[in-house]
């Protein structure tokens, strides 16, 4: 049992992926494209089973960026060379922000999309990693079936209350009345 678990262990952990960054090609405007081809941005180890990820390496993009520059943050397919990902402003890589990489993984643990977000940086890490598994869709919440016993009646009838449980208040009242009446009788 333990052995089998040990054997399964290396399969479960240790997936690694690289997030790349490259800039949006210059449009009609005169802005140049500082990063023409994808360069590695971050190396992330993750475990799809536990939705835990950790950063191995991070190289922030360098160059003369203005906030108008748009950078594409993407995963690349090693086979076809195609990329998939999101776009963000170059200003997002400023030091005052906490950057968060979101890796979307499918049911098999394969990453299929990357997300990128920023928030105000407090004392914590500069980079955060989030692994998001594809959620199962909601199912209708069905009513519980009514189970009948052999006689065709509801099985789990509420247990009958004992005499004391039922009439404790009457006894209490009786005792109280006795006390009060007894007290007045002495006089």
């Amino acid at each position: 049992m333990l052995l089998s678990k040990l054997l399964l262990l290396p399969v479960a952990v240790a997936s690694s992926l690289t997030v790349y960054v490259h800039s949006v090609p210059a449009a009609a405007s005169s802005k140049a494209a500082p990063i023409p081809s994808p360069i590695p941005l971050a190396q992330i180890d993750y475990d799809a089973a536990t939705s835990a990820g950790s950063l191995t390496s991070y190289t922030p993009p360098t160059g003369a960026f203005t906030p108008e520059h748009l950078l594409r943050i993407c995963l690349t397919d090693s086979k076809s060379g195609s990329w998939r990902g999101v776009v963000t402003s170059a200003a997002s890589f400023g030091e005052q922000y906490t950057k968060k990489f979101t890796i979307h993984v499918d049911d098999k643990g394969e990453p299929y999309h990357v997300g990128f977000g920023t928030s105000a940086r407090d004392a914590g890490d500069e980079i955060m990693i989030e692994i998001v598994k594809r959620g199962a869709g909601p199912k209708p919440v069905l009513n519980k079936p009514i189970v009948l016993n052999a006689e065709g009646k509801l099985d789990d009838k509420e247990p009958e209350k004992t005499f004391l449980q039922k009439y404790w208040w009457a006894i209490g009242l009786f005792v109280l009345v006795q006390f009060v009446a007894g007290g007045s009788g002495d006089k």
Partner: protein
Amino acid sequence: MRFDAALALAACLAPAAAVFEDDAHHIDFHYALLGLPKHDATFFQKPFAGSKASLLYTISQNQTIGVVNPKDGALVWRQASSHDGAGPGLLRSGEGQDTVVSAAGDRISAWSASDGRLVWETRVAGATVEDLEILEQEDGITDTEAKDAIVLLGNGKPGVKRLDGKTGRTKWTFEDASGDTPFQVSTSPTTIYYISLHTPMIGASKLRVTSLSPITGKKLDQYTLSSDSDIQSREHILFAGANTAAPLIAWTDVANKVLKINIIGTKGVSTFHAPSGEPVERIILHAPDRVNSLAHFLVEYQTAVGHSADVYHVDLKKSTISKAYSLPALKGKGTFTTSTSDANVYFTRVTAEEVTVVSSVSHGVLGRWPVRGTPALAGAYPVHGTSEVVVKADSATAVRSAILFSNGQWSLIRNGEIAWTRPEFLSRVVSAVWAELPEEEEALAHKLEAEGDRNLVSAYIHRVERHIRDLEHFPAWLQNIPNRVLGNVIGKSEESAIEEIHHDTFGFHKLVIVVTERGRLAALDVGSKGKVVWHIDLNQFSPKTTFHSPSMRAFAGYVEVKDASLEGSIYINSTTGGLISSQDIEVRSNVAAEGQSLISFDLVDGDLEGFLDTKSSPEAIWTFEPPKGERIISYTARPVKDPVASIGKVLGDRRVLYKYLNPNLVLVTTVVESSRTASVYLLDSASGQLLHTSSHRDVDVSRPISSTISENWFSYSFTIDSKSATSSRGYQLVVAEMYESPLPDDRGPLGASPNASTLQPSEGNGDAAKPHVLLQTWHIPEEISHMTVTQTRQGITSRELLVTLPASNSIVGIPRQAIDPRRPIGRDPTAQEQSEGLTKYTPMILFDPKWHLNHKYELIGVKNVITSESGIESTSLVFAYGLDIFGTRVAPSFAFDILGKGFNKVQMLLTVVALFVSVLFVAPLVQRKQINSLWTT
């Protein structure tokens, strides 16, 4: 705020908005359409043997079987084919039968002629039906029982089958293994003729006629007609008179100069020459279709400028054909129809100007009626038709002809009068848009804007000048007032549609421009019961294009039509239907303001990709590719115009849940066939960020998955696989609401900042982009093929989810209240939840009959539903199209800002007058009393 609360209260009191009885048939309209009828399958027929009146039967080009009452053009019954079957649509009926037999694709069905119920249905797997005939006589004896059908199969398994008329079972099958192309089947009292096109390796095609025994289906004889090299293709073969004493087959040469006719069953070929003069464009044979009628037929010659005809007689004994007489050539287009009465054959000639009836025996005109044209048929000419003639003592006393006109109107001409017209050109609409009329208000806004740039004095002068110029319209406006007031009080005013739209106070009159598969463009006024304002054929603007599924976009004053087979686009004026050249249009760029750039997105090679300012950069700025094996089937974006009145949802304890209102939301639906999984992905189309995902297992991915998105909520529906082992199966509807934060009175990381960007970095604490999504799923009784959401002017009115149910041919408006994902599960709602209008969750949502928008109408083949705001906040306009056309208006929170039909304006006026009069009477009395009281005290 108080207004909102009042609305919410109204919604809680009666969550089900229904179509009121006095509104039905007034606020809504329905075109129950068939499509253009086919010539050989349109006929008058008595629905059962002893019936007094006959009905008009037809199968249309889109294989819809329809039966129309010839009196008023009302639909008696119809059956739409659920699939686009290959092969021709065929409809036949035997004499004195109470069934009609149809064939479409691989299905042969018999329908009860009077009510359209299915009698039997047979499928021929792996083949298509090429021809269908009813065996009228067998060995010269008419079968009084159900008559058998003879079916010609092609495409895969060529052969002839005889089907039992009562059950549809196969009696015999003749298989043709010669590799010929099946062409036609014809019956005579003793033989069945199977005609095929024999194409040898070398040389031209030949016609091969095989005679079969009707009883056994055995081959009796076979011969090939020596056609030399005349027959080039199927189009040059003419055929007429199946089931008659002398069925004919004819073919022409390429130039339509020589006509060769063969009486089927004989080997002789007679040759006739077309009239010299104008080159003949088309030759059509018209022959009776009754066994016991005279063997006479008519050959129609159509030229570019006119048409003429020759009548021929067949001598059955000698098997010869001789010309009897000619009908004079007439200028203009026309058509001929054949009708029989006992053994006599009559030919009716229908042109746009007159209807004449001649007997097949002599050329004397039996009856002549001038046709009184109607605006609907202006400029159109008859294409084909069918007629019924009443002849008494050698003169035709009455004739009625159901004629298809070239503009797509199907109409009945009764003794020269147009009895009815059905706008069959409207069927199979593939795209529809709400037309945007060039607005005067906009021009005014521009003028006012111009004043802002000037100095005070010149702006003042400009303003005064404008007011003086506006005075020009004042007398006309003043003159119009009595008319309009009267029209308001009494009822309808007489105004043309476009004027109506301009003068429309409530904004119910809106133009919808529709385009059909075949490239016919029409404008309908939704406010005046779908009146066709104009309609044109797009083929006249680009004669070379064959339209497949054109698409449209609306701009102010014009629409742009695009088609895959069309180079560039066609621009059409919205109000007149006239062509606009592209130079006349000031091309307005999209909504992006200055200094901003627009991100657009599209499906490219199965991935969703976003682009920056489409024209300048072809490279994507973000891409979304679903996980391996998944296929994007559709995506829905939030409507461009989606006003939201309140940014939050007020809870029962007066706290607020803030809505996640991102204008760039896109909902992507994907499926995996192998694992029967359907997933939805919610994307932000500006940055490509994935905001929410959910996937469902055991989904029947072959069924439609519809989805829609509006405001801060989206919904989708799918079908659970019937073989799955889940606890519940059937159709499911999922509704999700997005909020900025799960906590009330919390705006999440963004706080109250007025601007937010998914591209620029945010300084908030926490992940700003992600919404908090609440989901709930319900079982629904029926499959949804399409869904959309109502739209109102300000978005104050609660919304309704409009779903199309193909199984019950209806459209249902589900109130948002009923599908609120915050409905408490497994417990009764608390008092606070009740005050919000939440009810306890039930796993099944039943479609309340009151939610049905179509009430008695049967909406067949609805492809899409579009909605638009009206002039008033309470009401949204709805327009559904597909095979049928349906329009209505809905008021999800009731018509709180308009008087209903029940309000009696006359009574109100009378009351005011009565009060005024009584005040006049009472005032002196009161005055006197007051004076008296002053004196006496």
